[in-house]
């Protein structure tokens, strides 16, 4: 064996040691992928734009105004406040791991993160801006002008602003959750209760919708499969129509994108209407209207414990 090969072997062994020499588990839930390799100039530009209040028409809001990265990627309100001080009509979903969702927005009306940014900037309730104005504003800023010039051949354009934002957002992954470590083979990291919780999560059929790499975020589902959630809740709004707003298909009434459960413990309140203030409430609603099951209190507690293991890290700190 060559010295190089030997060194490599040692390095590999050392690297694998904390994993307790285990194979990744084959589960319906998948660990987070690594952060994609992208143009660092564009990422940095996207980061600046993400925190740029000039994206809103009255310089009041940036993306970060509603998406607090260090607090789970959303905000703690049922409805965030728009540029004009009025609350929005739908709960702010987390931006963390959003790139792993198969579509964006609760009703999945945006196919890409670029489309999502486009819609938010132009939304008359969120940022209230238009792209012409955004491009003009950013072009007159010499810092942005040169940063765009360096990162994009055609400088400041609406498409490039959206792309920079999307590029940055693709780096927003809440890595190193305990459950991910578990999936990667470090089975000791979960407590027995949490492991039971995962078992219950699967047994009760939560994984029918919440599975895959984002533990959700890869399909649409009707809110209220086993009962009429909205009738029970009352106070119907337009947002409650869900995907129907996009397709005008009766089939899609009250259909929403299944949200990711990553960092669910730190993303209260829950659902598109922010109606569930706590995780317990949310789990109850899910059992009642989606699963049509009645869990024991013990099972519910276990599941909630399991959900806590899905909280990852941002900026090296646990969320």
């Amino acid at each position: 064996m060559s010295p190089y090969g030997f060194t490599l072997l040692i390095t590999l062994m050392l690297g694998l040691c904390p994993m307790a020499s285990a194979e990744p588990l084959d589960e319906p839930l998948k660990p987070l992928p690594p952060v994609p390799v992208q143009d660092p100039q564009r990422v940095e530009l996207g980061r600046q734009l993400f925190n740029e209040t000039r994206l809103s028409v009255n310089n009041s809001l940036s993306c970060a105004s509603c998406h607090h990265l260090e607090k789970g990627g959303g905000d703690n309100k049922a409805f965030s406040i728009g540029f004009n001080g009025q609350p929005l009509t739908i709960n702010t979903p987390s931006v963390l791991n959003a790139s792993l969702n198969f579509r964006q927005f609760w009703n999945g009306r945006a196919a890409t993160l670029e489309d999502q940014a486009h819609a938010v900037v132009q939304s008359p309730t969120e940022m209230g801006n238009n792209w012409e104005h955004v491009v003009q504003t950013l072009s007159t800023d010499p810092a942005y002008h040169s940063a765009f010039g360096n990162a994009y051949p055609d400088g400041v354009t609406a498409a490039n602003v959206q792309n920079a934002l999307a590029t940055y957002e693709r780096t927003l992954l809440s890595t190193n959750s305990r459950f991910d470590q578990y999936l990667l083979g470090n089975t000791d990291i979960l407590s027995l209760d949490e492991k039971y919780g995962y078992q219950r999560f699967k047994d009760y059929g939560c994984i029918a919708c919440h599975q895959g790499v984002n533990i959700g975020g890869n399909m649409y589902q009707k809110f209220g499969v086993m009962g009429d959630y909205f009738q029970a809740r009352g106070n119907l709004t337009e947002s409650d129509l869900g995907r129907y707003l996009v397709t005008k298909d009766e089939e899609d009434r009250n259909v929403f994108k299944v949200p990711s459960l990553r960092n669910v413990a730190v993303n209260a309140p829950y659902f598109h209407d922010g109606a569930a203030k706590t995780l317990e409430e949310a789990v109850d609603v899910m059992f009642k209207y989606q699963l049509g099951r009645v869990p024991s209190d013990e099972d519910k507690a276990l599941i909630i414990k399991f959900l806590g293991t899905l909280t990852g890290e941002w900026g090296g700190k646990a969320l």
Partner: protein
Amino acid sequence: MKVSRRLSLLLLSGMTVLLASMLVFLYIKSSTDPASGYSDARDLIGRMKQLNAQWETEILKARIAISHDYDPLVAPLTEMTRLWQQFEAIEPSHERSDSAVWQARYDAYLTLIKEKTRLVEQFKSHNAVLRNSLAFLPTAEDDIQNQFAHLQDHDKLQLQNIATDTYDLLLSSLEFAQVASDDKAADILVGQNKLVVNKLRLPEELHEQVDILGNHIALILREQPIVNSLLTRIEAIPVASRLDDITDLFNKDEQQIDTSQQRYHLYMLVFSALLVLLLLFMTIRLLRSFAEINRVNRDLQTANEGLEQRVEARTRELKDTQSELLDTARQAGMAEIATNVLHNVGNVLNSVNISADLVTRKLRTSKALGLGKAMQLINEHRGDLGHFITEDEKGKLLPGYLNQLVEAIALEQQGITDELAQLSKSVDHIKDIVATQQSYAGANSLMEPLQVSELLEDALRMNSGALTRHHVTVVKDYAEVPTVMGDKHRMLLILINLISNAKYAMSDLSDRPREMTLGVKVVDDSILQVSVKDEGEGISAENMTRIFAHGFTTRKEGHGFGLHSCALAAIEMNGHLTAHSDGPGKGALFTLKIPLKIAEGET
């Protein structure tokens, strides 16, 4: 002429450029390589087809609950979308995107994929809840059965029936999940009705469980046909064949391009052949014109030869004319020479004349006549001769007279002899002049050893009479000159002429002494220089160039041969005669320069 030439040149180059660009155009057209674009595009379509198949596989896997993870149902579509964008990015290079057929095919694909996506999304939603309920059914049933086991106060038989019914319902539902036929659906409906009836027979705490089971079975009954129909519809969507259609279009397009390429190949071949023919034609034309040029050249040569002959004839005629002229000239020359000779002879005859005159005069006044008178006296006194001589007055004088007479006659004789010698010398000179004239007539000049100073003295002597008459003082400025080989008579001719001219030039001089300077010296050891300088009337600048010309003279009685013949004579001796004057009234200097040839025996 010039304009039309430039125009034709322009036209020619235009034609050349046109032909060349046509060739290049055809070459490019026939060799454009669409292979890479086509293969890339087809490769993309192929990969999309593959992904589509993979997608369908994953759908089936989800349908039979092998996989609980729906990410594989998302990934192929994402990838297909990405590939399609990639495909659209390279596709426009085929310049077919505007074509309605292509657009229709693309739209067909996009519509289908959109529809399929929609159906797959629905399938995912419905299948998820269906799978969940199906997975839950056994558990739900077990839960109920377990509850039955714990029921103490119930009719066992009734419970048994209810359990059987529930179990049947479960089986029906599972069967329905396999074959969603109307029969099975009816079975389930019956089972559900039984369940509703049975529920009432069961204690309150079991109602919820039964309801849950009922709900889930209802869901299966509802969702299973939906899922099945969705699957059927998804399968019915011919995404793959639409992709095949696009590939077909590519194939056709490529074939078309191949055909057009072949056609352009053919065009190029034909065009090349035409060009070759053109070249051939031009070569032939060139050869022909070359032959034509040759022929014309030959004609020209022939013409040239004829011309040469004619020129030769003309030349001959000219030569003849020239020799005639030459003869004429010779005669003229001879006449000139004769004039020359006669002039020179005339000069010398002058001396002869003078000598003869002198002798005649001396003879006429000779004292010899006195001898006659003395003899007469003697004859008269023949008898008394002694007396007469001694006594007679006259007779006494006689002996003295005779003595004086003898002396006078002796003196006279001496003078006459001298004068005759001079005369004979002049006659000799005339002889020489005649001899010289003979030399003009073809005889070579006679080279003989000469003492230049003697020659000068001879020349002076020949002019001595005139010089004396004109009171000309001669200054002799003779350097040491060896005996040279020279043509005595030519030299003499020149010198006599120059001295004579100098004398004439000073004939009107009264304000200063008439002085003539004769000089002789050797210049550069190679040239003998003889000069005659006078203080006379000089030569004006305009005459300076003409003084050697034939017939030029400034004198009334002159005939203009003197200097001309001198100059000729100088040239004949390979020398030359030059004149110099500071202007009218300032005298003149004539210089004869001839090559110095030292006589043998001299050093």
